Structure formats: C-alpha cells, structure tokens
C-alpha cells in the first residue's frame, strides 16, 4: 500500500487534515498554490466568539507539520485515476502517486465591486470585511477616517442574492459583523454604529451573547432592512438608503465609513479539477458530498475526500472538526482496502 495522501490546499482545513493523517501514521503531502500556509484565517486579525488572535490558532501548526512535506506555490496540473491510486501531476512537473486525495481548497470571498450599487472601489470610504481585518492588523488604510462619527455595516453582500448568482447564506458574516462592530466601537467609542441586516443568523455557541453585548454594552444599532443603494455626498461621506422594515419607513443615514460583509462563495477555478476526476459539484458551485448528514467529508468517488469550506460556508471550529473527520475517513478507507 502506498500511504501517500495528497491534500489540495493549505488553509486550516488542509493543515489540520495533514496533522491528523501524520498522527495516524500516514504520509500527507500538502500542495498549496500561494506562498504560505493558513489560507483565509491567516488574513484575519482575531476570531469570534472569544476574540482569539488568528496567530495563536495557527502557530501550533509550525511544530505539528514540521515533518510533513509541504509544496508551496504549487498547483495541480492533472489528476488521473489509476486502478486503485491517483496519479497527480504538479505544476512543477513532478508526478505523485497517491492512495487518496483530500480536497481542502476552501472558498473565495465575493468580489464586492460586483455589487456596483454599494460603491466599492468607487467611493472613498467603502471597504469590505476583509479590508477591515487587514486594517485591524496594520492600522493603515486611507479609506478609514481618523475619527469617524458614524459607521455602517451591510450584511449579506453577494450572499442570499439571486442576481449575484449566490443563493446561499454565508453563515459567518452576521457574527463577523458583530465582532467587527464591537472592535470598531472599542476603537472609536464616540461613533454611532449601524448594522443593516435581513435576518441575524447567530447559531453558534456564545453568538447570541455576543449580540446581546453588542446591543447593551456597546450600543450598536441594528436596523432590519437590506441596503438598497449607496451614494457619496458632496462632503465625501457615504449615504446609505434602506427601509427600516420593522417601523415600515425608508431610512437614510450619512456615514464616514461603510463596511460591506462580502460573502463566502465557491472557488470556481477548482471546478475543472473536480470534473477531471468526475467529482460532482453542487448547484451553489461548492463540491458535492456523498450526503449532507453523515458523509459530508466524502465524495461519491472512491479515494476522494473533502475538508472545510470547499463544500460550503463554515466556521473555523467546524472546518477543523471536518478535517479530523476526513483524516479518519482516509484511514478507514485505506484499512478497508488492504
């Protein structure tokens, strides 16, 4: 038996899968297209619901993965199914023979400029959730004013939106908006902060407490209405239009900073790879699991597995749990094959 397991993608899903496979005595190889591991988590400043610095979550992997083969700036050129194994050709010309392949290719953040009515890339003070995490890390972004008196968050940007081609809910952006709103309020205590939402989806442990804190301790305003359009005022501020659907009246507000909660969408570029091994893709563009209850981390093809957000929006703890489950699936698959 060849114990080499290919892991495509070195985000937290791929890293955790590799760690577990190693512990199970197998031989994982991570292929990551960018120049470092960590995926999206490496870009975030700190994580809900405990404000844990991302750095702290990722650091232990340095040690855990020190004996794992990691190929950075490498992509998959082709995968072919042999009788039992998979033959994988990499972009550096190397060929690997692997017993199983775990897809941990993650997600793409919705490109906010596609929702032109929100003015990203057009107006001076419109940024995304990702830009704000970067600002928390670097404190430098000329779009963020020194003393904002009013800040807005737009939920569901590119999610739950038929016209943007994404009907799914991104799951993490309601709680991310609350986290970021609290962080901004701590930074700018004199500013008024508004969250424009359609539904608040706060399903996880401690999320509802986070929401209560945001209301009670930080005085963040929650307005139930989707932002319909944004324009720039003569003095360079942004004006937002929505309906306060609970009051039943249109509302307008002028802001110094507007944060768009870009959604989690599928990584389209990986669909060709999926097709090449006859791995099915769902209507939403994410990879399709064998079923959505007990075999989420398995594809309907022998030897192909999934971990993390390549099958749909997920939080970090969910992603990590799936990575462990995928590693166990691989282990059992190989045991059964002997």
């Amino acid at each position, binding site marked *: 038996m060849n114990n080499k397991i290919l892991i495509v993608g070195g985000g937290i899903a791929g890293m955790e899968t590799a760690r577990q496979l190693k512990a199970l005595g197998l031989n994982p190889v991570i292929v990551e297209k960018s120049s470092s591991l960590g995926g999206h988590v490496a870009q975030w400043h700190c994580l809900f619901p405990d404000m844990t610095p991302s750095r702290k979550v990722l650091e232990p992997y340095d040690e855990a993965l020190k004996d794992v083969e990691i190929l950075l700036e490498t992509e998959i050129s082709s995968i072919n199914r042999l009788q039992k194994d998979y033959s994988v050709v990499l972009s550096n010309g190397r060929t690997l023979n692997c017993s199983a392949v775990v897809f941990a290719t993650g997600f793409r953040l919705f490109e906010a400029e596609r929702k032109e009515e929100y003015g990203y890339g057009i107006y001076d003070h419109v940024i995304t959730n990702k830009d704000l995490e970067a600002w928390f890390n670097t404190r430098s972004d000329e779009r963020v004013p020194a003393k904002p008196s009013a800040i807005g968050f737009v939920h569901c940007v590119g999610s739950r939106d*038929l016209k943007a081609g994404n009907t799914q809910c991104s799951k993490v952006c309601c709680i991310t908006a609350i986290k970021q709103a609290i962080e901004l309020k701590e930074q700018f205590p004199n500013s008024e902060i508004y969250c424009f939402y*359609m539904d608040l989806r706060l399903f996880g442990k401690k999320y509802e407490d986070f929401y209560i804190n945001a209301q009670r301790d930080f005085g963040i305003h929650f307005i139930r209405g*989707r932002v319909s359009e944004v324009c720039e005022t003569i003095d360079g501020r942004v004006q937002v239009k929505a309906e306060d*659907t609970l009051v*039943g009246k*249109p509302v307008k507000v002028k802001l110094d900073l507007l944060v768009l909660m870009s959604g989690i969408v599928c990584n389209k570029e990986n669909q060709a790879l999926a097709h090449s091994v006859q791995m099915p893709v769902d209507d939403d563009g994410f990879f399709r699991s064998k079923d959505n209850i007990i075999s989420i981390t398995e594809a309907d093809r022998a030897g192909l597995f999934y971990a993390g957000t390549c099958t749909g929006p997920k939080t970090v703890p969910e992603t990590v749990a799936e990575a462990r489950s995928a590693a166990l699936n691989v282990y059992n698959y190989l045991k059964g094959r002997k």
Partner: protein
Amino acid sequence: MDFGFGLTPSSAIELDALDNGLFEKLCRIEPGARTCIACGCCTATCTASGYSGMSVRKLLLDLQRGRNQEVEQMLSHCMLCGKCTMVCPRGINTRRVILTVCRLYDNVEGEL
C-alpha cells in the same frame, strides 16, 4: 341613546379565518411572489415610498394576510417606474407583480 363610547373592533389578524385568495391567484401568475424575504430594498429605493407609503414589501405581506383594502389604496401611488425590480435580491419582477395585482382587482386574470 349615545353614552359616548363604543366597541373598537379587534385589529388582530385571525390566521385560521383568513381569506388570502388574491395572493394565491397572484402566485399562480407570479410564483416568485412567494419568495419575498421582506428585506425592504424595493421600498428603500422607491421614489414614491417616502411620500405615499408605497411598498411592495408591505403589499405582498398585506395580501398574504388578507388585508386587500390596504393594498388597493397603496397601488394608486405606484408610478410603475420599475426601480424596485432592479434591486430585489430574490429576482422578483415586482413591477409585474404590481401590474398583476391591478389586473386581479379588475378581475382580469391570465396573461399580461
């Protein structure tokens, strides 16, 4: 004899005694009407809403709750400009919904 007081009828919506036949007729012609998530984009972007209370969101809800009178009053304020259709995240053809409801009030069913 007038004692200076009367009974105020209850304004509660009795769901089990509801007549939402008009909404069901609308949905046969415009099935998308059922997918409204009451986000309010249509109302926020409508030029008439701030002055007249025109709101596709309210119209759809009122129809579902059998409040047909409220809807009839509201319809007269729409200018059929179609801005609401441009912003609806569910892709509902709200302008056509309005036209369809008008036709239904006039008892003309079928293709528009």
